């Protein structure tokens, strides 16, 4: 990668995420977030959701991977923030497949950093808002 060649607005990576309910159970165990709305249909319906939804933190964690792979070292990610704008429903059978597109949002030559903006959508609707990753350029 040649940081000097980056320009604001440039797409640097895109990927389709894959999430099924078994993955949500593994995330629940790995993260410690055992909120039943991410595992149990009846618990999700009871709080007015259409069914089991992915942990917002799962979506956030999965969406940043295209940036890690692009920059080549997870230790170069120095900041990451997002709003959770829409839930990601995960069907009982099959999977949900959000799309992630990463573009250069800003460059800071003095700090040697780039802000990478993530556009994360499911069926054309944005599920993360203002998802921004700050990376140290190698």
């Amino acid at each position, binding site marked *: 990668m040649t940081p000097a060649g980056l320009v604001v607005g440039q797409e640097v990576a895109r990927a389709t995420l894959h999430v099924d309910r078994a993955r949500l159970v593994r995330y629940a165990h790995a993260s410690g977030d055992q909120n039943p709305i991410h595992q149990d249909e009846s618990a999700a319906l009871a709080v007015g959701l259409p069914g089991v939804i992915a942990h*917002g*933190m799962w979506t956030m964690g999965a969406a940043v991977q295209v940036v*890690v792979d692009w920059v080549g070292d997870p*230790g170069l*990610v120095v900041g990451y*923030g997002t709003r959770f704008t829409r839930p990601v429903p995960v069907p009982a059978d099959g999977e949900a497949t959000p799309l992630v597109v990463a573009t250069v949002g800003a460059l800071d030559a003095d700090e040697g950093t780039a802000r990478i903006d993530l556009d994360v959508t499911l069926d054309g609707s944005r599920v993360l808002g203002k998802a921004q990753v700050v990376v140290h350029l190698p």
Partner: protein
Amino acid sequence: MPVDPSFVGRVYPPDEPYAVMREQIAAFAEAVGATHPAHTDPQAARALGHADVVAPPTWAVVVAQRSEAAYVDDPAAGIDFSRVVHAEERFAYTRPIVAGDRLVTTLHVDSVVERAGLAMVTTRVEVADDAGAPVATVTSTLAVRP
């Protein structure tokens, strides 16, 4: 019971240090689809200059949510989890978290504000190593329906 704004400004002191394990990082990485070898292979991590395998960028939520529990699980705080949605999350890293770290967390209740009929509750967890050197800051906002 509504969210009690008098909790704003409270600081919850650190609990016992949390020992970061390779296996735990690997399980988290697998769950979020983080396939970079630096998450699972100590040699690959060392080749990049890290002391051991590196946690994925959102891994700090593991220690942050444990820390936040002292506040959000307190019935007096008025946060009913059947009425909560996660609104916002932010990580700022002073340095990467690696296996072998012993992390301590300090929880701050930064704000409780009303927005569009929701109580927006913002907490901040300062993550440090067991010598007190800063590692990361995790800021989280919950939206609580009345």
